Each structure stands twice: as C-alpha cells, then as structure tokens.
C-alpha cells in the first residue's frame, strides 16, 4: 500500500540541544536520534519540556546551543525545510472549509501547484480513509475525524519526518486506536515519526521512548526494554483511614509516593525498606499491602519524578 508521506524517511538527530525562553533553559543538553520507519515517543510530566523540544526539532524555535540534523544537514542553517511536517496539539483545521478544501489549502500553502495539490489530496483521502467526510465542513466533523484531517494536511506535502504533539488528545479509545493504526502504517512505509504523548499505552506502541524530566533525558530505549531492565516494584498501602494515608504520604513525600484517597503507592527498587518505613510510621498496621512489578506507566512516572527531584536537588 502506498501511504502519503511514503518518501524515504530521513534520519532525525538532535545533538546536545539546550533551548528555552529568555535566559531560562527549558530543555537541557538533549540528544536523540530516530531513523526512517521508526516511531519515537517523547513522554514526561507536565512542564518537562516536551512541546518545546518538538518545536526545536520542527525548526520553529532556535536552540541556545546544540544542533538538529536531518540526514546530516543542520535544520537551522536552512531557511526552510521540505522534509519536516508538524502536527500540533490544537486541531488546526479551518472549520468553514470542507475537508477536501482544507487539504488542498494545506498543500498549496506549502508551495504545491493546484494540480499537484489536488493529486496529492486524492491520495491522502484514499490512504487515510477520509472519503466519508472529505466533503463536509471542518466544523461538522467529530474530534477523531478532525484529527485525521489535520494529519492529512501535514502529509499532503509528503514530508520525510513527521512531528506530532499529543495528536490523540480528546479522542475516544476507538478513535485513538484508529489513529495509531495510521501512525504505524506511516512508519511501516518508511516515514520517520516523533510523537509527544501523555498516554503511556501509546508510548508502548512506539519503537523507542524518551523520558524527559525537567528538560533532561532521564531514560530512553524500547518500551519493553525499559520495563525489563528496571527492578522496580509498586507497593500499595491501602489504609482504613484516609488520615493515616495522608500522614504516610506526607512523610514519604510526593517525589516518592502517590496517594489516591486512602491508598498510598510507592514505586521503588527496595520494597522491603519501604514496608519497614511504613510499619514504623503506623505500628498499628491498620492497612493492607499489595505488591506488583512496575508497569511502563509506573516506570515513566517514577523516572520523571526522580529526574525532576535529582535536578531540582
């Protein structure tokens, strides 16, 4: 199957990027690399610098230091890039244009002639399966349809690298699954994809995950390897009284623990030590203990918190 954007994917690399606003660095010494046919997911807590990193990779925000390279060429040494397309978090389609009109505009505003844009639009409509709503106005589309249309707009010009900023925000599970099927299809056709996401299940579908905390990379690798290499466990303390849970949570601190009502959970490499600490705090032992291996979301939150704590400290 030929999918729009099926030009050979480019290798995207970032070398020691530092960028921010004014003199304040938001991302610090970040390096990464992703090649054609791969999906890199960038995850992190709010304020970790994910969107800023994506804007730097897109060529929209000059770094204070470091370089962004596409197939070895420095993005910031060129005035434009025909290789990169960006899909932002907001649904940036025109509500008063039909899907087909929007796609044609998206192609022509990126320099295509009318004929080339129309030809490419037809391909995009076919391949992303937009035909059912291509002639409806943007304002009449569901969130999932609008997101797919926005993605189509970025593909009309056939980029080599596609950067996506939380593109499944606001979609229901079914629409998210559909969106991810398209993402995987684009990757299998050779496109290079970098995606910022809050959804851990989406990070699981990527070929590589990069965890950002306070602007720094605290971990990276294949999601399975990240979990496999960690010796983390999650210990959950289910208290009978919410006040006890709060006292224990306050003692352990928000960097080490999470609390939901009367349950305090701790992701740790040393469950015995945590258990001992809590037993000393609540000698009446008026709680239940559950333990399980850390899943990817536990690991990512743990890494992000640890990274932020270490850097802050």
């Amino acid at each position, binding site marked *: 199957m030929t999918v729009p954007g099926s030009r050979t994917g480019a290798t995207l690399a970032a070398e020691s990027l530092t960028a921010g606003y004014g003199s304040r660095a938001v991302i610090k010494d970040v390096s990464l690399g992703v090649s054609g046919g791969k999906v890199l997911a960038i995850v992190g807590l709010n304020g970790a610098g994910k969107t800023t990193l994506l804007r730097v990779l897109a060529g929209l925000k000059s770094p204070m230091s470091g370089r962004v390279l596409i197939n070895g060429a420095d993005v910031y040494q060129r005035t434009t890039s025909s290789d990169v397309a960006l899909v932002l978090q907001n649904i*940036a389609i025109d509500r008063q244009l039909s899907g087909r009109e929007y796609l044609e505009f998206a192609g*022509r505003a990126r320099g295509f*002639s009318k004929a080339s844009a129309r030809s490419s639009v037809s391909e995009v409509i076919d391949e992303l399966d937009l035909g059912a709503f291509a002639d409806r106005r943007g304002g009449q589309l569901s969130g999932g349809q609008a997101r797919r249309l926005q993605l189509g707009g970025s593909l009309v010009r056939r980029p080599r690298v596609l950067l996506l900023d939380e593109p499944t925000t606001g979609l229901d599970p079914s629409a998210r699954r559909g969106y991810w099927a398209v993402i995987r299809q684009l990757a299998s056709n050779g496109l290079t994809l970098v995606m910022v996401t809050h959804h851990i299940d989406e990070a699981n579908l990527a070929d590589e995950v990069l965890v950002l905390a306070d602007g720094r990379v605290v971990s990276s690798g294949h999601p399975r390897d990240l979990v496999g290499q960690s010796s983390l466990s999650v210990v959950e303390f289910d208290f009978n009284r919410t006040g006890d849970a709060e006292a224990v949570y306050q003692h352990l601190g928000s960097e080490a623990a999470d609390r939901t009502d009367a349950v305090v959970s701790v992701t740790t490499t040393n469950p015995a030590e945590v258990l001992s600490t809590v037993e000393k705090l609540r000698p009446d032992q008026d709680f239940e203990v559950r333990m399980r291996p850390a899943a990817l979301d536990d690991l990512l939150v743990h890494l992000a918190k640890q990274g932020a704590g270490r850097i802050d400290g």
Partner: protein
Amino acid sequence: MADRGAIALPAIRAGHVASAYCQRDWRVHLRSPLAIGGMLAGPLLLLLAIGIGLGSAIGGGAQHQILKVIVPGLVGMGVVLATSQRSIAVFSDRTSGLTDEIVAGPVTVRIIVLAQTLSSTTIATLQGLAVFALAAMLGLAVVPAHWLVFLIALVAFAFACAATCNAMGLMARRPGSIQALLNLVVNPLFFLSGALFDVSATATPIRVIALLNPFHYGVRLLQDAYNPGGLDLALVLQSAAVLIGVAIVALLVSARSLRRR
C-alpha cells in the same frame, strides 16, 4: 514518488502560496454573509446619518461639503473594517497552530506573510468597492477620468491597512490583545486620518497628528480621486510612497514575529 512541489521556482512557489491563501480566505469570506453585511453597515450608517441626515439638517450647502469629505473616508472605512476583520482571522490561524504548522514546512515566513497580506488586500479592496458602489447609487461617484487613480488609491490603502492589521494579528497572543490593538491603534489611525472631517479646516494639533498618521495618506488619496478637479501628481506619489513604506515596515514586523524564535 516524485516530490512534485520541490521543482517549483521560489517565485512560482510564492505564487502558489498567495493563491492558496486568497482562495481559502475568499471561500471563508463568502460563506460569512453576516460579516460582509456588518462591514458594509458601518459606512452606510455613517453615510446616512452624517452625510445625508446631519448635512441636510445644517443646510446651506453643508451637505455637499460633508459628503465630499466623508464619502471617500467611508470607502476607506470599508477597507479598515475588512482588514480589522482579517486580522482576527490571522490571529486565529496563529493561535490555532495552523500558521506554525505551515511555517514548519518548505515555505519562508516572508512568503507566508506576503500571501496573507495579499489575500487580505483583495478582500478589503472588494469591501471598499462595495461601499463605493453604494455611494454611487446615491449619486456620489468618482468622475470616469479618475477611476484608475481611485482604484490604485484603494488598492494601495488596502495593502497598507492589511499589512498593518495582519502584523497585529500575528503579534497578539490573546483574543483580548487583538481587540485591544485594534481599538488602540487601528481605530485612532482611522478616525484621526481625516476620513470624517476636513483636515485642512481643523486646528493645528489635529492637522499635525493627521500628517503623522499613515492612514491619512490613504484617505487623502481617495479624497483626491473623488475630487473632480485636477490631480496633484506630486501629492499622489507622496501618499503612495508613504503607504508602501508603511506596508513594508508592517510586513517586516510580521515576518519577524513569525520567524524562528
């Protein structure tokens, strides 16, 4: 698969971008009859209230004098209202992320800014022509010998206004900011331009303010075109030069606000 767009020369590519923006904006404009009506209602209301109502109430030839001044001013008002409206659309494109998505692609910010401005210019010119037509139906027209000058004046004023208003649309960060910029900058520029009064008959401070106001030169060009007497070519060229200069500065400001930060 060949990258068909990549072979286009920069100038041709710029033409594609400008044409894309014009087509998109015209489609949206024509699908908003309420906005079109709103833009025409203001000038028409002033024409009826001040030009005809107040003019005939004062009597003694005042109506003719008032109409001579305000009809070209109201054509200018049509232009200013249209470009103000367009600046809000430019602001929406920016804040929704659409403009950033396009800037990340293969077209330079200068071409994008120029395309947005040309598109706004065409819409503002047509709005100005609509006011011109309404006034003509009331018997207030430009003499045929001045039609070309009128058209040039209208396009030049529309281009300067479009560049100025679009710059504001690109610089604003919040909906309140764009509205405030329009109220604090564009409205004073228009109302102190001499569009609704005879600058030569006002007190010196107002005259000085008008002479420092770039919109004054657009309005003056339109007034010259409406004047059935002979045209002062030096004044026409001077006014056109000021408008083009203002437009260039505004385009540079826009490009700066869109460039990589």
